[in-house]
């Protein structure tokens, strides 16, 4: 038993060092994913024709939303106000304080005049006939925005900057 202990000590130290290195690596990945840039696959028809319904892979940068540099026309990822575990991809059509005219979705609806309240944005999908967005759940608080889409990396023929 006592002859094993001198062998275990350097082994223990190596295990420790590898664990520390692994922890640092995972922390690094987490920080990049949460605070710099993230990869997302979007599904669903609400952003046709900009994104296909079967799954485009996008790069989402997390800095613009933290520093409030989102502009009108940006495509953003946000937490859905109706289900906080769902991340949706929509376009920002109105910033706080702006007056918007929202056309009716169906022929029988009314034209709405909306002023976007302070601290909120108006999100709409590009596919107006098949998108659940601010026309249904109202202006979205800025705190729900997660990041801004800036590059499409898949499908490979369609690398586009937004």
């Amino acid at each position, binding site marked *: 038993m006592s002859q094993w202990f001198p062998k275990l000590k350097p082994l223990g130290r190596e295990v420790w060092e590898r664990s520390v290195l692994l922890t640092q690596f995972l*922390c690094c990945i987490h920080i990049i994913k949460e605070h710099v840039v993230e990869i997302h696959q979007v599904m669903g028809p609400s952003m046709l024709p900009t994104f296909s319904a079967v799954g485009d892979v996008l790069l989402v940068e997390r800095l613009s939303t933290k520093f409030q540099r989102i502009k009108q026309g940006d495509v953003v990822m946000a937490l859905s106000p109706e289900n906080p*575990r769902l991340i949706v991809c929509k376009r920002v059509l109105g910033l706080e304080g702006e007056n918007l005219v929202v056309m009716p979705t169906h022929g029988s609806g009314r034209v709405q005049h909306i002023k976007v309240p302070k*601290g909120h944005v108006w999100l709409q999908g590009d596919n107006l006939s098949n998108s659940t967005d601010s026309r249904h759940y109202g202006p979205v608080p800025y705190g729900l925005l997660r990041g801004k889409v800036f590059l499409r990396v898949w499908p490979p023929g369609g690398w586009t900057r937004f």
Partner: protein
Amino acid sequence: MAEPLWFLAKRSAAAAMICITFTDIVGNFATIQGNSMQPTLQQGHKDFISLLKGDVVFYEKISAPAYKYCRGDVVVLRSPTDPDQLMVKRLIAMQGDWVNVPGSHEIHQIPKGRCWVEGDNGNLSLDSRNFGPIPLGLVKGRVTIKVWPPHRIGRVERVLPEGQVMFTDMHSCVITRSCLEYTFRLGERASYYQGLAAS
């Protein structure tokens, strides 16, 4: 000559990464500003000496990804009117509940995905009575303990004000009443909950 500096820089970077990951995933400390949660939580005053008397709390973010919050929890949330500001309020009602706005005869049903938050000090608090139900996605963590000042160290309890909320479904939330635990499953029937007895 640069060797110890490089070593120090590497160690600092590693420590910073671990700290940032910890505050993102596990929880963080926060100093209380504003008296909207009195008497549960109190702020320090503006001059430096009294600043040390303000409450410092620890809020956990482990329940954040699955949104495992219960009615009555004190939560940290991003303000719907000012995205840079974090607020500390008590979570009063969840989606589907009917809440009676205190001091008036209004009854609101909380829409899908939203919740109702209120400060304990009704006179000073800017909360759901002003800006309505807020999306649950704005809630970032749950305050668990007060860590400063020393004479106020202790748990921040889950307390639901009496007679204000009507539940249709408890979302399998467990509320502790002294040493007994009740799990309510009310199904479709609405039932009036009288609030926790202070026991």
